[in-house]
């Protein structure tokens, strides 16, 4: 009997962490930010609400708070190492607990943002940006990488 009690305590202590782990946290890059054709000297804006051109990440994880933080590029790199400035506004990122692009809470992608993963364990993050091509911007294809870090908060 006494031995059974000890076992029960041990099982309870084990049950807490195993339960808290729940679903593993996964982050998936679904869609890149696509500026398409950019004219020299003409800024090209992609809104986070743009269903075709905005960037999208999907998050799966345990219900609860997570911390979202981006690693944002300052420039895009093009032919022969040519650079094109890339800007992110204070509301260029959006968080959606329904994963619907039309239902977002905007936030500043340059600042860490605390979000809540809903009961179903799914959410999405959208991001827009502005490409600022100089008037003498070298023609060609430009790319940059945007990284989203997600951390489950205790």
């Amino acid at each position, binding site marked *: 009997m006494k031995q059974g009690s000890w076992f029960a305590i041990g099982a309870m202590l*084990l049950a*807490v962490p*195993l339960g808290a782990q729940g679903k593993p946290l996964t982050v998936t890059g679904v869609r890149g930010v696509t500026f398409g054709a950019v004219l*020299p000297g003409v800024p090209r804006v992609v809104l986070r609400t743009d269903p075709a051109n905005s960037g999208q990440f999907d998050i799966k994880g345990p219900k609860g708070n997570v911390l979202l933080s981006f690693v944002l590029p300052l420039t*895009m790199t093009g032919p022969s190492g040519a650079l094109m400035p890339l800007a992110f506004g204070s509301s260029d990122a959006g968080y959606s607990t329904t994963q619907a692009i039309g239902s977002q809470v905007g936030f500043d992608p340059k600042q860490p943002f605390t979000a809540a993963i809903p009961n179903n364990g799914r959410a999405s993050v959208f991001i827009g940006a502005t490409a600022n091509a100089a008037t003498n911007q070298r023609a*060609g294809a430009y790319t*940059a990488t*945007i990284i989203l870090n997600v*951390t489950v908060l205790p």
Partner: protein
Amino acid sequence: MRSITKLSLVVAALGMTGTALQAQTNNAAITATASVATPINVVGAQQLSFGNVFPGVNKTVAATDVTNGGRFDVTGQTSTPVTLSFTLPATLSSGGNTMPIVSYTGVHALLATQAGGIAFSPAAGANPTLSGTGALFVWVGAQVQPATNQVAGVYTGSITMTVVY
């Protein structure tokens, strides 16, 4: 002895608890992509030339005059709209002497022959579209009005055309 075994079990459980409470972190990357179009290039290809003018006799060079009209050649992104704007002098100068230049006219066309050209007012500017090869040709004409006592000499002025997407 039995107590030690039980204590070990609890310690092990606590240890696992500590491990599990460490924050989960994950990340993913996406790519931003853009295709920058050809920059605009403008060349002053031909001067606006009035030739000899006589005091008291106005002289006009039409924008349709492909020989004497001023011409700018533009290249850029194919089939893309552009905006033309001009800085137009009100007078030509020869040393300290001036001669009025007025009534500017313009024609833009996709071919250097001016075939299919479209007339416009340089003072108002224009919004043509570059050709399928990214070309545009713009001609400028005007009228000079020498006074009856206009001092003889070579008179010049600068016409500037600005092109933006």
